């Protein structure tokens, strides 16, 4: 038992409150937001190494013993994702003052930003299904406030749909929890897992599992539940889109990963095969969406969807190699999606439009931004030696070992089309004749560049230095494939 595990939730929560009080004093708010996010990252790094050396951190709130009280479980997967979340958060905290207007910043942007981080960290760290719902709501509430920031016509229009869809799936989540509680009599994830194992996951439990999957799939944007994503992620401010694209869908994928490697693992013929089918369709439809539009923000938003398909595929194959691929891709995708949304946000702002057909020749004005975009495209598409490649390689190895040839082919074709959709932006926006009409805003561009460069450097390190990271990722996969480790560490039997 250690109080350390709750710090990644508590620090942003308190930081949000502090920033709500000083929201109108902009210089102070900016400074404290940067400082507090660095502090939060430092804590996350410390916890990561602590967990690597000493094993899972467990905090039982108010010293109520495990299955009865609220519990926070900082295992290796959770702390890795918390660490990645905080890396993206820092880039966002430094990008925000450049991208938001003073008025938008003054309307509690930083407060909601920290509450979002708090909710995301909480969702990763909780060991209790009902608390997962509560933290989903914390992060969704913050995201509702962030998505309307600015209050444009399209923004209000899309945020209504975003809110309604999430509200509906949250209510289904509550219903699914009620079902689980009725069948197994607990909401503690470790104890649910134990009891589901005892009754060998009968039909009713598999039905509940699919209901839960439906809820998480809505949040994660899996086919056919992704329709809400592209429009609502492309309308808010770039820094908000980056946070959403990097963190929110990943929380959904994390929940699927957790629930279907820990609790509902006994009917893989039904549930995990369903995942494989949906993963393939998610990839195909997502990438078709990305090719169908000329709006750069929409192209990047659509590119979230095939990535979700890749991660779901690893869960569907359900072998150690494939799961390690999913975990690797999860970390990779959080970082690169953050970078990409910031990049197209900067691009659209500097070009004055997000329509690809009206852009051109930007590389003459902003060479550094252009080449960073090119690099980010390669990373996203999974060109070796970058990090997307390592994740996909593991997924494909897992797929071939299980002789799931069709999904492997779909993955490869999708990756190629992702590269095509990204290079289309690069050619359309950056190549071409120098456009003299554009008023070059070097100062703004310099402000944009550094947070993005930081994220990209991280992403490249993750790929080139795969040797350093792979052992940690592999041990997470081993740990996930042996759910009794989680159960034992929580229930201490």
């Amino acid at each position, binding site marked *: 038992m250690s109080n350390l595990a709750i710090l990644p939730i508590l620090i942003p929560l308190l930081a949000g409150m502090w920033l709500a009080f000083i929201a109108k004093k902009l210089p102070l708010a900016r400074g404290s937001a940067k400082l507090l996010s660095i502090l939060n990252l430092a804590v996350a790094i410390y916890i990561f190494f602590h967990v690597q050396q000493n094993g899972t951190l467990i905090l039982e709130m108010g010293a109520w013993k495990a299955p009865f009280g609220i519990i926070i479980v900082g295992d290796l997967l959770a702390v890795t994702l918390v660490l990645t979340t905080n890396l993206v958060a820092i880039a966002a905290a430094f990008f925000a003052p450049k991208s938001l207007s003073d008025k938008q910043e003054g309307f509690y942007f930083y407060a909601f930003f920290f509450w979002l981080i708090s909710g995301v960290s909480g969702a990763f760290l909780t060991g209790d299904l*009902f608390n997962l719902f509560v933290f989903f709501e914390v992060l969704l509430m913050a995201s509702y406030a962030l998505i309307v920031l600015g209050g*444009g*016509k*399209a923004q209000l229009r899309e945020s*209504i749909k975003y*809110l309604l869809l999430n509200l509906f799936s949250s*209510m289904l989540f509550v219903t699914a929890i009620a079902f689980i509680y*009725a069948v197994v009599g607990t909401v503690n994830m470790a104890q649910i897992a134990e009891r589901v194992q005892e009754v060998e996951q009968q039909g009713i439990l598999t039905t509940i599992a699919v209901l839960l999957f439906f809820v998480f799939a809505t949040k994660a944007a899996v086919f056919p539940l992704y329709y809400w994503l592209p429009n609502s992620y492309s309308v808010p401010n770039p820094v908000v889109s980056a946070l959403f694209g990097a963190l929110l869908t990943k929380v959904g994928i994390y929940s699927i990963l957790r629930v279907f490697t820990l609790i509902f693992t006994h009917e893989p013929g039904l549930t995990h095969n369903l995942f494989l089918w949906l993963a393939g369709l998610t990839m195909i439809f997502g990438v078709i969406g990305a090719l169908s539009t000329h709006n750069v923000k929409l192209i990047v938003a659509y590119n979230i969807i095939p990535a979700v398909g890749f991660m779901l595929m690893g869960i569907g194959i359900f072998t150690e190699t494939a799961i390690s691929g999913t975990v690797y891709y999860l970390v990779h995708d959080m970082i690169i999606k953050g970078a990409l949304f910031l990049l197209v946000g900067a691009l659209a702002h500097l070009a004055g439009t997000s329509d690809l057909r009206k852009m051109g020749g930007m590389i003459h004005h902003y060479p550094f931004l252009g080449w960073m975009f090119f690099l980010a495209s390669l990373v996203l598409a999974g060109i070796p030696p970058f990090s997307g490649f390592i994740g996909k390689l593991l997924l494909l190895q897992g797929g071939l070992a299980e002789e799931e040839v069709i999904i492997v082919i779909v993955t490869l074709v999708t990756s190629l089309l992702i590269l095509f959709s990204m290079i289309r932006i690069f050619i359309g926006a950056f190549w071409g004749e120098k456009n003299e009409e554009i008023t070059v805003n070097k100062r703004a561009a310099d402000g944009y560049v550094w947070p993005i460069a930081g994220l990209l450097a991280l992403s490249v390190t993750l790929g080139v230095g795969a040797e350093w990271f792979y052992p940690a990722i592999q041990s997470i996969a081993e740990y996930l494939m042996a759910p009794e480790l989680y159960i034992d560490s929580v229930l201490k039997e």
Partner: protein
Amino acid sequence: MEIIMAILAGLLFTTGVYNLLQKQLLRIAIGTALISHGAHLFILAMGGLKGGAPPILVEGIEQYTDPLPQALILTSIVISFGVTSFLVVLAYRASEVNGTDNIEELRGNDYE
């Protein structure tokens, strides 16, 4: 008793979904509220209804009420209350800015 509660929750879900599928934003907001009521009643029924028993487990007491569903519902009610009020304000603002409260007219792919 549980059966009646389950049927009531189902009715609330049905009417909620019906309202959710309407065009007017206010009806949609009411629909979400009904659905969340349905979900809350459902949790209560799922914990088992035992009238008149204390929510305490002491040695010697055989009949006791499960206190956990009530704690879950309370949390969930507070959350859905907050979200619903936010939804109403957002719907009001969106209909002011867009000049319509008809969700059919709020589709479209134009960007600012």
